[in-house]
C-alpha cells in the first residue's frame, strides 16, 4: 500500500514539474514530447518484459499508429488531435488482438523473432506503396485541438500537455493493473508457466491480453510521434526502431512504471547531445552509456532509486 502511494506521489510531482518545465523551456518541448511518446511504447514493453516476453517488433504498432494519424490527416482531412490519438490506440489494439492469437503460442526467441517478422512485413509493404510515399513517407498536417487550429509554440505546448496527460494516465493505469489478479500473473508467468495453468488460469489468454495492451500503447506512442515530428516514413517499422525500444527498456529497467519515461528522456538527451557534439560517432556514445548502465546498474536506471532509498533508511 505504501509503495502504491509513493508511485502516485512521484507521478503527480513529475506531471507538474514537466508541465512547468515545458513553459520555461520551449526549445525542449519537441524532445520532451518525443520522449513521452516513445515512453508510452516502452511502458507496453515493460509489461511484456515483466511477463518474460521480449517483443522485437513494437515498431509495427508504433508505425501503424503513426500512419493512421498521417493518412487520416492527409487523405480524409481529419485533424482533431484527440480523435487521431484514439485512432492510434484503436489500430494498435485491433492489430495486436488479431496477431495475438498466433503470438500467444510462442515464447522466448520465437516470440521475439515472430514479432520482428511482422514489423518487417509492414516495413516491406510501406516501402513498396507509392501512394503512401514509399521510402520517403509523407508529411502529417498539424492537428487541431477541440476544433480550434493551434499554431507555432502554442501548438507544441498543447501537444506536449496532452502527451503529459496521456503518459500520466497510462502509467497510473499500468501501476494499478499490476495490483490486479490478471496483472499479478505477469511475474508468475515469467517464473513458472506450468504452475499458473495448474492453478486454473490460462497463460495464453493472459499473454494475449498483455500483448493487446502493449500494442495499444505502442499505437498511441506512434500517433503522438507522428504529430510531434510532422513527418512519417517506413523506418518507424524498421527493426532498428523496435531495437531502440528494447535498448531503452533495458536502460530504464522494469522496476517502476515511471522508469520507461525517465529512460526515454535520458536516452533522447544523450542522443541529441552526442549527435550534436560528435555527429560521426554518436552511436559510440550511446552504446557506451548503455554499457555503463548494464555494468553498474544491472536492473536499469530506475534501480538508482532503490539504492538511494536503501541508503536513506538504515
Amino acid at each position: 500500500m505504501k509503495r502504491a502511494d509513493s508511485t502516485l506521489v512521484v507521478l503527480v510531482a513529475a506531471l507538474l514539474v514537466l508541465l512547468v518545465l515545458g513553459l520555461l523551456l520551449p526549445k525542449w518541448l519537441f524532445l520532451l514530447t518525443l520522449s513521452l511518446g516513445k515512453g508510452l511504447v516502452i511502458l507496453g514493453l515493460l509489461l511484456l518484459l515483466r511477463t518474460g516476453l521480449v517483443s522485437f517488433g513494437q515498431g509495427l504498432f508504433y508505425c501503424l499508429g503513426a500512419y493512421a494519424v498521417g493518412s487520416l490527416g492527409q487523405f480524409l482531412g481529419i485533424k482533431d488531435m484527440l480523435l487521431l490519438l484514439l485512432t492510434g490506440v484503436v489500430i494498435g489494439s485491433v492489430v495486436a488482438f488479431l496477431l495475438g492469437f498466433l503470438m500467444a503460442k510462442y515464447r522466448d526467441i520465437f516470440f521475439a523473432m515472430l514479432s520482428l517478422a511482422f514489423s518487417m512485413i509492414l516495413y516491406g509493404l510501406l516501402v513498396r506503396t507509392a501512394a503512401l510515399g514509399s521510402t520517403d513517407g509523407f508529411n502529417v498536417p498539424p492537428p487541431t485541438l477541440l476544433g480550434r487550429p493551434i499554431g507555432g509554440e502554442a501548438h507544441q505546448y498543447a501537444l506536449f500537455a496532452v502527451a503529459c496527460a496521456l503518459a500520466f494516465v497510462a502509467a497510473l493505469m499500468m501501476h494499478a493493473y499490476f495490483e490486479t489478479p490478471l496483472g499479478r500473473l505477469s511475474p508468475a508467468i515469467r517464473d513458472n508457466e506450468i504452475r499458473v495453468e495448474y492453478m486454473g488460469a490460462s497463460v495464453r489468454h493472459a499473454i494475449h491480453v498483455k500483448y493487446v495492451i502493449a500494442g495499444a500503447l505502442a499505437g498511441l506512442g506512434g500517433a503522438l510521434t507522428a504529430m510531434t515530428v510532422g513527418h512519417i516514413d517506413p523506418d518507424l517499422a524498421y527493426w532498428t526502431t523496435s531495437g531502440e525500444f528494447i535498448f531503452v527498456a533495458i536502460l530504464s529497467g522494469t522496476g517502476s512504471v515511471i522508469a520507461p519515461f525517465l529512460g526515454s528522456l535520458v536516452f533522447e538527451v544523450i542522443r541529441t547531445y552526442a549527435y550534436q557534439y560528435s555527429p560521426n560517432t554518436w552511436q559510440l556514445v550511446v552504446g557506451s552509456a548503455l554499457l555503463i548502465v548494464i555494468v553498474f546498474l544491472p536492473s536499469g536506471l530506475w534501480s538508482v532509486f532503490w539504492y538511494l532509498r536503501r541508503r536513506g533508511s538504515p
Partner: protein
Amino acid sequence: MTPLLDAQGLCKKFGAVTAAWGISISVEPDAVVGLIGTNGAGKTTFVNMVTGYIKPDAGVISFKGQEVTALHPRQITRLGICRSFQIPQLYHSLTVLENVVVALGIALRNSKRSRWARAPKFVPGHEAPLMAAAEKMLDRFGLRQYRSSLAGVLPEGVRKLLDIAMALAVKPEMLILDEPTSGVSSDEKFGIMDTVMSAVRSDGVTVLFVEHDMEIVSRYSKRVIAFYEGRVLADGAPAHVLGDPDVRKYVVGGQVAELAGSKESARA
C-alpha cells in the same frame, strides 16, 4: 453417496512400459487417502491422469459426476481438483506473500463469472480483502516469518508448505499432494503434515496424497491404496492394507520392520 472422484479402468502405456493397467478407484467426499507403491508402480501416472497432465489410453475419469477424462489441467483445476508438486513449483522471484496472493487472485477470477467483476479496478484499497485472506493463509501454514522472503531462497520444508498453501489457496474440493514430505528431514516431516492436514481438513477438502513414508501414511490417512506394476494391489483401511501380505512383500518391504519398531518405541 455419489463418489467425488470416480476413475474406471484407466490404462496408460509409455512405449513398451505399462504404467497403468485397469486402475479403478473412487473416492468419497471428505476422504483422506494415502497412495503408496514403489517407484514405477503407477501412483504418479494415476495422479497425472486425474489432473489432466496425461490422457489415459482407455478408461473414464469423472469428478462430481462430470466426465473430465479429456479436459486440460486448467479446466480440471477450475472444476475443483488442485495439486501440489513433489518438487515445489513456486514463483521464485516473488515473495512468499505474493505467491499466495497470485493463487488467491486466480481463484477470485475463476469464481466470479461476470465481466465486471473480473475487470481491473483502479480504486485504491479494493484489494484489501485479498491481502487479508493471504495473510490468514500464511498464518495457517506457519509461514508468517517468511512473509517477505523471496520464494527462490527458502529452505526445503518451507518450500513444501508454500507449495501446498498455494494449491489450497485456489480453493479446491479435492487436493492431491505429491509426496508432501519428500526431501524434508525426519524431524520436520510430522510438523509439516500436522500443519497441512489441519489447514486442509478445516476447509473440508478431500485429500489424496502420494507418500513413500509408511509412518506418515499410517498416521494421517483413513484409507490406503497400494499400487504395484500399474494395478491396484490393495485398497482399504491403513491397518488392513499395510498388513496385507502382498503389500508387505511388494510395496512396503523393509519399512514394515522399521514401522513396527518405531511404533513400539513410541509406545515406550
